[in-house]
């Protein structure tokens, strides 16, 4: 059996679950909205055992051969009380599933412990560098003067969140010069601007799907907000770069990974981030790449 955990409106999760359901592969979908209807028992000693159960289903952990997890923060879910026993139930269910997912011998996309380095971009960038990709020169500081010196050195710099809080990557401009004083309140991340073409590479097991993004925006994910656009097309990576992406995904223990690359005009490949829970359908819909199919195959194999 293959377990899916998340929300039915989540397009990557649904894309893979629907594919497997059409093939009559035995699956179970644990909808987070229904968290209060599920109970769980997890026993860990010399072996791992337990079950998930609601009124109509009984899922023995021993029967789960693989799992695709894209849970949302339980506290943000409509229908989950924001206090009391209901919230404790939903949070407890989540804790049990996350704990199970990190120790089960089942195949898991992706294990929670492997997803956490993404919560610190400079921490993850050190992993990326150690695994063979160039990363932009970065400064994290509470020193306005250090930020100014870094800006002067590189000419063009961008700033973005240090953590995984989603932030729009923006170029530092003279308009923000006065606001640099505010960095003394909170460590702020500045990065040299790397010119070039963006690529999103999805690694699924040993399969690699590359998309090239054509956009003038500093952050193509938000191009539409500023009247711009992002054109996405299938790309072919040099074999050595594709292999490096595979090694990177294996190195950070992510069987499914979304890798953000940029190819500079001088032919150098930079890596900005490895997304441990990639929203691949955005790229699949634009390119027709069979990424959901690859994930489905990975889960079944």
């Amino acid at each position: 059996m293959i377990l899916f955990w998340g929300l039915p409106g989540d397009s990557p999760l649904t894309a893979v679950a629907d594919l497997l359901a059409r093939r009559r592969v035995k699956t179970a979908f644990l909808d987070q909205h229904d968290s209060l209807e599920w109970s769980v028992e997890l026993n860990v000693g010399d072996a791992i055992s337990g079950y998930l159960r609601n009124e109509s289903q009984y899922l023995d952990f021993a029967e789960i051969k693989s799992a695709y997890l894209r849970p949302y923060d339980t506290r943000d879910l409509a229908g989950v009380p924001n206090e009391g026993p209901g919230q404790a139930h939903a949070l407890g269910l989540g804790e049990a599933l996350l704990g199970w997912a990190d120790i089960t011998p089942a195949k898991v996309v992706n294990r929670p412990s492997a997803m956490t380095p993404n919560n610190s971009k400079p921490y993850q960038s050190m992993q990326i560098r150690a695994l063979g990709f160039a990363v932009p020169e970065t400064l994290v500081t509470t020193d306005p003067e250090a930020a100014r010196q870094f800006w002067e050195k590189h000419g063009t710099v961008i700033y973005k969140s240090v953590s995984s809080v989603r932030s729009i990557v923006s170029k530092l401009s003279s308009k923000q010069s006065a606001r640099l004083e505010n960095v003394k309140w909170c460590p702020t991340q500045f990065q040299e601007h790397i010119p070039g073409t963006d690529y999103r590479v999805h690694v699924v097991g040993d399969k690699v799907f590359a998309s090239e993004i054509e956009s003038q925006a500093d952050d193509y994910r938000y191009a539409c907000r500023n009247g711009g656009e992002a054109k996405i097309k299938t790309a072919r990576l040099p074999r050595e770069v594709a292999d490096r992406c595979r090694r990177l995904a294996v190195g950070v223990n992510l069987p499914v990974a979304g890798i953000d690359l940029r190819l500079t005009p001088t032919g150098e490949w930079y890596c900005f981030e490895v997304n441990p829970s990639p929203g691949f359908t955005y790229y699949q819909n634009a390119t027709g790449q069979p990424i959901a199919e690859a994930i489905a195959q990975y889960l079944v194999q």
Partner: protein
Amino acid sequence: MARKALLILASASDESARRLAALWKSDGARLMLPRDLSRPGWRYQPGQVERSVAAADGELIPARQISGVLTRLGSIAEDELIEIAPDDREYVAREMNAFLLAWLSALRCPMLNRPGSISLSGPNWRPEQWAHAASQAGVPVVPSRRRVPCENNLSKVLHFVPPVTVTVVGKKCFGTQDKVLHDGARRIARHANVELLAVTFAGSGKDARFLSADLWPNISAPEVAGAVQEHLLGR
């Protein structure tokens, strides 16, 4: 030669940390509190940690002067950031945690404990993960059971054997003379990639079984505090 600094990263309300800082003052001990992350002067360029600068106890401290770090918290809590506007505290706390995780991970000096990928000190495992780790390390385990819903949400199978706690500091063990427990506690610490850990067992000798682990043990006992100090100073 510049004076060495031994950093103690702790909550502002951690009285044990204050006592240790006073006790180790002659070794350059400085308390680093969450509010120090809102002081001008921090600089860190990934890949160049030796050139980084920290702010603690009213001073700017170059990384090359840091002889060791004792981390007494897993993360910075937003309610410690009283100088930050309330609406911004959650975001600022997350940014500070992400920054500290990267900087502490890069430092090469002795550290108790080195950060995990989500916690500023150690792996921050759930009880099930500790039980699994103990089992993987070859230590017999009292099974951990989690049931939801359940009034007793997280429980161990009932046992009637008095618990014994071993505190591991590097290669040293404290709390009992039982060599079997020492060996088991060290194996679990190694498996978790930590050097400061309290491990509680049910029973003793060959009948002992793992019950729980604690990444933030009480280190106020003089012999434990001394071992922590020696470890951090690389002696």
